[in-house]
């Protein structure tokens, strides 16, 4: 009989945790659907080191395009130069209820990321590092995270977090839907 209150307490504590977990999972799938709705097409904007609010380098122009593929289960993000050649590419996809990404980086390595935190207030999904291929040395630059923030239908921020020689860095891409 003494076990019953303990058992009830355990269940009572477990339910909100599982609910939060399910809520988190379903948020990623909902966010992916938002990505499918908002991202496809051409974007233009600027990028700088640091954050959007506190850039630590001069803003530089950039163009990005997004394509959907594979039965709406993957989104290809291409950062292109002035000759429309791809500089780097990220492919986002669903793995059941989890958003995953592989980033084919200008540093010539290919980190994989998994969605871990969804901030409803800012509509930002944070993907964190899982593993990386083709890293020549541990000290080489490689991305460790991607924050994808959908501000509205025509404005998106993508922030890459990186690590090189033990030092963290961020680079933010502020994109607006292209009219062309």
């Amino acid at each position, binding site marked *: 009989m003494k076990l019953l209150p303990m058992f009830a307490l355990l269940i009572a504590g477990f339910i909100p945790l599982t609910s939060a977990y399910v809520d988190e999972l379903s948020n990623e799938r909902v966010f992916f659907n938002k990505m499918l709705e908002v991202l496809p097409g051409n974007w233009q904007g600027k990028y700088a080191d640091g954050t959007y609010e506190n850039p630590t380098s001069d803003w530089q122009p950039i163009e990005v395009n997004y*394509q*959907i*593929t*594979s*039965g*709406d*289960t*993957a989104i*290809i993000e*291409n950062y292109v130069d002035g000759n429309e*050649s*791809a*500089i*780097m*590419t990220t*492919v986002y*996809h*669903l*793995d*059941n209820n989890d958003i*995953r990404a*592989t980033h*084919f*980086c*200008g*540093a*010539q*390595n*290919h980190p994989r990321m998994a969605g871990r935190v969804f901030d409803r207030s800012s509509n930002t999904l944070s993907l964190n590092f899982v593993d990386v*291929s*083709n890293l020549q040395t541990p000290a080489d630059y490689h991305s460790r995270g991607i924050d994808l923030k959908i501000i509205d239908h025509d404005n998106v921020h993508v922030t890459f977090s990186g690590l090189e020689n033990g030092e963290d860095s961020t680079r933010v891409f502020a994109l607006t839907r292209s009219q062309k």
Partner: protein
Amino acid sequence: MQTQRISIAVLLLITSLQSSAEVDVNATFDLLKQNLVGEWRGFIAHSGEPVEATFYLTGNDSAIVEYIRRPQKPKASMSSVYHAADDEVWVTHYCSFMNQPRLKATSFSAQHRSLSFDLMDVSNLQQSGDRYTHKMRVAFPGPNKASVTYTGFAEGQETGDLTVELERIE
């Protein structure tokens, strides 16, 4: 064109000096880079369905993106990304089966001018019996020609090949 044929011949000669079971990452990835990048059109072999394909470099030439468009079935477009992974060549296939197998190059055939890939893992399988691509083969059967074959697998057995035959658009 002449340079392309010479490049294929040279790379095939280099790789044929090794066992056909071995994959030299630099030689084979260079083979893919030099002979896939560009615009292609073609068809799916068993049905004749027309396709269009674009292969382009990214990641400072460390990866090749393959985007195959199916005008008659837009939702069934599919993509793959080939890349060097240390001393191996990998490909992640973003499949029209709506899952994402990762494969690695396991053999190169100079005779058939083809590179074969075998499965490492697959994401987004909804159920254990779902079909997924467990082998791929990229071949160059002739000048300005390429083919990509995807071999399906489900419930313990292969389910057949889907081969895309491509011809480079001049």
